[in-house]
């Protein structure tokens, strides 16, 4: 028995050492999550506009074009749950924050917590962004180890690629904008639209949980006199036509109601904005780099217009429009 234990230990020791080494390596691979966390903590005092949300805003809004001292804090498949938690954890680093831009879409309203094939991303928030939430319990090995939290094999290969090829996972600009959606992508928009709409469907019209989280964000912003711009980003008709129209109507209606009830909230719906032709899209529901620049310019103008009209209210006490559809 002792000989067996000794043999096992002798084989396991190098493996455990490699594991520990790899754990250290993968925790330190530059990636957009750790980059954004670092920027918020070190340069948060210069951020006036924070962009939250999922890939729709991560790829869709270029802060360099948007201006307003903005920073893109969105990540792929980021849910409203993490939008709220990230904001709550990091708002103290942003004393000059004036505006929050958050996408409200079919995806964000349908996203269920702790489910879906991209569920593994919760470990990125936990380890790279120090965003510890109850959805990773302390008895889960992923709470402690990044290597063992997701696919061990994928993380291992990522670590090796980084060590040998210096291939990191940083895929955003210095302002946090995702640059992977290059123009000229040969996309079958019809197929992509059907697949994306199916992926974003959770077969439920009950999105109260996500609305509650949105209200938490709004209240957090209200306490600090921060404006919240809810936006529905542009998509192709190949995507929007495949969505459940009743549910979509409910979502948009809810957004309009929220913006009407809260002084600091505005809603802009670009879902079927025909200014965005196919040349601006990477796939059926994501803008490409050129589309992101175009959209950021439009968004800038609309945000400024809404802020000015709010300012006029304070002076003239007239009612003003707090929601726009297709820029109008």
């Amino acid at each position: 028995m002792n000989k067996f234990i000794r043999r096992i230990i002798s084989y396991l020791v190098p493996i455990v050492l490699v594991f520990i080494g790899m754990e250290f390596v993968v925790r330190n691979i530059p990636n957009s999550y750790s980059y954004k966390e670092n920027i918020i903590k070190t340069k948060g005092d210069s951020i006036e506009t924070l962009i939250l949300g999922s890939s729709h805003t991560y790829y869709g809004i270029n802060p360099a074009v948007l201006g307003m001292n903005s920073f893109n804090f969105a990540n792929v498949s980021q849910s409203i749950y993490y939008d709220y938690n990230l904001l709550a954890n990091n708002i103290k680093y942003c004393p000059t924050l004036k505006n929050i831009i958050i996408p409200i879409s079919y995806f964000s309203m349908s996203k269920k917590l702790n489910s879906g094939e991209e569920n593994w991303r919760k470990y990125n928030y936990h380890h790279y962004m120090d965003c510890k939430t109850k959805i990773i319990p302390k008895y889960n090995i992923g709470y402690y180890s990044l290597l063992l939290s997701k696919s061990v094999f994928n993380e291992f290969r990522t670590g090796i690629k980084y060590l040998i090829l210096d291939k990191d996972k940083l895929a955003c600009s210095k302002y946090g904008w995702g640059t992977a959606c290059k123009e000229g992508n040969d996309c079958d928009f019809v197929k992509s639209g059907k697949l994306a709409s199916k992926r974003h469907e959770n077969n439920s019209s009950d999105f109260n949980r996500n609305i509650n989280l949105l209200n938490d964000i709004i209240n957090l912003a209200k306490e600090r006199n921060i404006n919240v711009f809810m936006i529905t980003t542009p998509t192709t008709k190949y995507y929007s036509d495949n969505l459940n129209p009743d549910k979509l109507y409910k979502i948009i209606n809810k957004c309009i109601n929220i913006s009407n009830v809260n002084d600091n909230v505005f809603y802009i719906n670009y879902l079927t904005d025909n200014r965005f032709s196919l040349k601006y899209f990477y796939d059926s529901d994501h803008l490409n780099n050129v589309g992101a620049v175009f959209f950021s310019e439009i968004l800038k103008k609309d945000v400024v217009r809404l802020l000015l009209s709010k300012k006029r209210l304070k002076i003239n006490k007239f009612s003003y429009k707090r929601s726009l559809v297709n820029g109008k």
Partner: protein
Amino acid sequence: MFFNSIEFAFFLPIVFILYWFVFNNNLRHQNILLLISSYFFYGCWDYRFLALIIFSSFIDFFVGIRLLNTKDKKKRKLLLLLSIVVNLGFLGFFKYFNFFADSFADVFTLFGNHIEPTRLNIILPVGISFYTFQTLSYSIDVYNKKLQPTRDIIAFFSFVSFFPQLVAGPIERATNLLPQFYKRRNFEYAKAVDGMRQILWGLFKKIVIADNCASYADRIFDNSFDYSGSTLLLGAIFFTFQIYCDFSGYSDIAIGTSRLFGFNLRRNFNSPYFSRDIAEFWRRWHISLSTWFRDYLYIPLGGSKCGLLMKIRNVFIIFIVSGFWHGANWTFILWGLVNACLFLPVLLLKRNRINTNIVAEGKNIPSVYEIFQMIKTFFITVLVWVFFRATSVNDAFVFMNRIFSKSLFSSIDIHEIKIYILLFILSIFILVEWFQREKEHPLQICDLELNIFIRSGIYYTLILSIFFLGVSSQSFIYFQF
């Protein structure tokens, strides 16, 4: 808790240490530890179904005791019937209720009436197909007086729930496994080391071969209309290796894990893809299930020692029931039917037992005829697996139709370097399995007298390939059965 999960990597050493260091001096305590560990293991899947396995174990334990004390033939038959009804009743309800409800409704539709079947939202308890057959084998063997019933409730419950083979077999006979719970297990170094080697080989088969083949097989089967016949055939070949490596990999891990605790489980796969005919294939594939059906269904029905029509009937019953055991879908029944049609001529021509030894025994290179036989049997198996994998009977026929179209001779549609790497790894895998086909598993390398550096090199190569080539965790195929 999958065998290839981190949780199991913590669970197994803890149980091992407690088993050999804390409770090794007391057999009963060791059995209790195995029982608790097994229930914990099973509970991690779904704790709600613990009651089911406990109840099933209790019924068969009770039946065994009563059979010992009952001489009356009628009463003995009733007791056996109780065990069969309870076990098959649970299996039938959880696995087949919705299937029968839908099929019943479909029959009505055929006659022009439409009825809405009552469907229940039933979750299939993991391992139910395996442990019910295991406990049934106990009741039947006790009834036939092949086995003395046990009065040791702990030993019996541990036998039923023994965690290495609980959720996906091998389906152990009580005559083999139960007596091992009565006698003290002594740690045997060689057995434990061999067990570890078998676990490593099983993990390699599952994580590297099966999961990588699965990623292509799933892609091709799920989008079959987009691919040529040659690609569909490649998809079927990938599935052939996926199901073999997945299931036999699990069995290897189960057998290897059992050996760590001093238990010997029966071999479940014996190089089935080197079979020379379909009868040999069924002697080498999922041995525990095929022998179960042979001993408890085929032989009681008369087997092949009866008239021609009865023989044909028995063959069809066995294969259709075997197919049905795999799942509540007409595709499995069709798969069984096709296998019966392939097996029957071999049986009727009395050629079903001509290839009983391993192919090219004692030789490294098979003869040309043997190569031809193996390739022929392999490709028949590949095509038959299409029925098993397809989601509907219609899909199966469409898939087959597209394979045998003109596009069978066109080039493959998937041009990825990964596919060529996978084919290369499969070639190495086949060679290893070939040269070690006469062993229990390919990593039985003691007789090769390799020095420690070469042996370590082999182990680390397999471990590294698991980490470099492994795919995100996919569950074992046979868990769904």
